[in-house]
């Protein structure tokens, strides 16, 4: 299935619109909304690398997001690094951690890997919350280092998120047509058969895991500055792991557009549900769960799968 990107000009136009958007000085609420959607595009798309294309479903994606956030916070506290400078080291730290824990965990089979990543997120959360240099449960304040006017601040963060989203999506686009991407999908479809034709399972999986974590870590670092305060229980929410997974799967894992569409639709849905009357009864996660269930039962390829029939 030669998946061309659909209509490249459509994506390009979208990109242009997104770039211009913040400089039109729209209401802050909308800027924040798009920023948040962009953040989840990064999270879902990065999850997609290991969860969708490689077939190793992770329940602990937030681990790397959180590590990125902490690294950025520490860099700020120690040396005043602003978000765009801290992003790369944060991403690298997360990727490094992924390589270390990936080595033993990627040997596990599907469900076990999933639970292991879940346990991992819990372990790392407790560790980071309680280590002395990470605030011992009080968190780290990350304020300053950014422009002061509200609009400029929002614009700056928006641009950061947009750049990161473009980078992540672009990486997956490249990956899909590369030798690496085909190897990953072979592993996803049948690891033993993949090995039999020379695919080095462990190497590819590690790279995918590290790549996935790299982007998540970078997202975390920007988030740290945006939230201005980093403390483990707030950052390491299972919520983020869930959203990364659900957005990618409902949108269509193993596709480029899937996580993007999933993030946009689901996040809007989420906002809509929480701010409307229904928000009183916290129906948003229930809807997520139901949608996930429907996807697994009836539409394994998510929204993208429905549209490509």
């Amino acid at each position: 299935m030669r998946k061309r990107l659909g209509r490249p000009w459509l994506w390009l136009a979208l990109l242009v619109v997104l770039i211009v958007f913040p400089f039109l000085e729209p209401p802050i609420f909308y800027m924040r909304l798009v920023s948040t959607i962009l953040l989840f595009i990064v999270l879902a798309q990065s999850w997609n690398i290991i969860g969708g294309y490689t077939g190793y479903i992770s329940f602990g994606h937030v681990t790397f997001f959180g590590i990125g956030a902490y690294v950025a916070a520490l860099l700020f506290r120690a040396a005043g690094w602003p978000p765009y400078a801290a992003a790369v080291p944060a991403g690298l730290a997360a990727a490094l951690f992924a390589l270390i824990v990936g080595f033993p965990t990627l040997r596990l089979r599907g469900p076990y890997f999933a639970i292991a990543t879940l346990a991992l997120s819990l372990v790392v959360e407790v560790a980071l919350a309680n280590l002395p240099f990470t605030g011992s449960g009080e968190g780290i304040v990350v304020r300053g280092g950014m422009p002061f006017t509200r609009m400029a601040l929002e614009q700056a963060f928006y641009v950061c998120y947009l750049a990161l989203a473009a980078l992540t999506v672009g990486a997956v686009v490249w990956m899909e047509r590369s030798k690496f991407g085909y190897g990953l999908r072979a592993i996803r479809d049948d690891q033993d058969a993949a090995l039999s034709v020379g695919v080095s399972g462990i190497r590819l999986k590690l790279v995918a895991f590290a790549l996935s974590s790299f982007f998540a870590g970078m997202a975390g670092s920007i988030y740290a500055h945006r939230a201005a305060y980093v403390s483990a229980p707030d950052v390491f929410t299972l919520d983020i792991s869930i959203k990364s997974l659900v957005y990618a799967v409902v949108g269509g894992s193993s596709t480029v557009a899937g996580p993007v569409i999933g993030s946009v639709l689901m996040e809007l849905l989420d906002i809509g549900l929480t701010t409307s009357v229904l928000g009183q009864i916290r129906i948003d996660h229930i809807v997520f769960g139901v949608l996930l269930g429907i996807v697994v039962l009836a539409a394994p390829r998510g929204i993208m799968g429905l549209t490509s029939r």
Partner: protein
Amino acid sequence: MYALPAVGLSLIWGVMKIVNIAHGVLALLGSYVALTLFRSFGLDPLLSAVLMLPVFFVIGLLVQRTLVRPIVSQPEISSLMILFAFTIVLENVITRVWTGDFRAMTPSYSGVSFGFAGANLSIVRTITFAMAVVAVFGLDAFLMRTYTGKAIRATAQNQAAAMLAGIDTDRTGLIAFGIGAALAGVAGVALGLIYSFHPSVHILWVVKSFLVTVLGGVGNIRGAFAAGLLLGIAESFLGTYVSFRWVDFCIYGLLLLVLLVRPHGLLRGSGA
């Protein structure tokens, strides 16, 4: 104390080869229902526990029928996902119905302890322990003595062979799930008596049950019981030496270690 939920998890895992991540939230449901029965009707939690058995059995059947069976042919991860979806939904339903506050069940005897062989034992813990023992031994007897029980064990060992022997593996899986859910419900009551609970705690519970199951050997009921005891003791032990925050860390870390070091079900080498 962790033996109870772990036993149910172990059973489902062993028979259906499914990791029931919803196990924790099912138990939690049991806790909340018992709480309501206690608060509103004054029904003693222990009696609720008995009531739970058939109710949760049916719930388990329903879940299995509607969610799990349709995707039996899909890779294992799909069942995990669907149960995960169910978990998300149920957790949020619970939050909606009972709010996110911390709760505890405190029947009249909950604060009382008595002296026994020189140690101070709380009545609650003793009773829940007794519940666990009864449940586990009951299950054990069921698995060993009854036809259905043996059918379950056979299916767990080798599904294909069981089918050839005329066992309706579909039904066995269903029943196993029902039993597992029933045990989860009861476990929830027990856990609710000992610990305070809130809507998100089920993840902790299921992770710990997971640990116990793996330690005791997947599908091994007696092993799960022994491991559950061990974990409970270890936890209390650790609690006296290490700051409470790090106890959980050790538990999760242990789970990770066990998962990584112990090959279970994976490497039986049934190659092409």
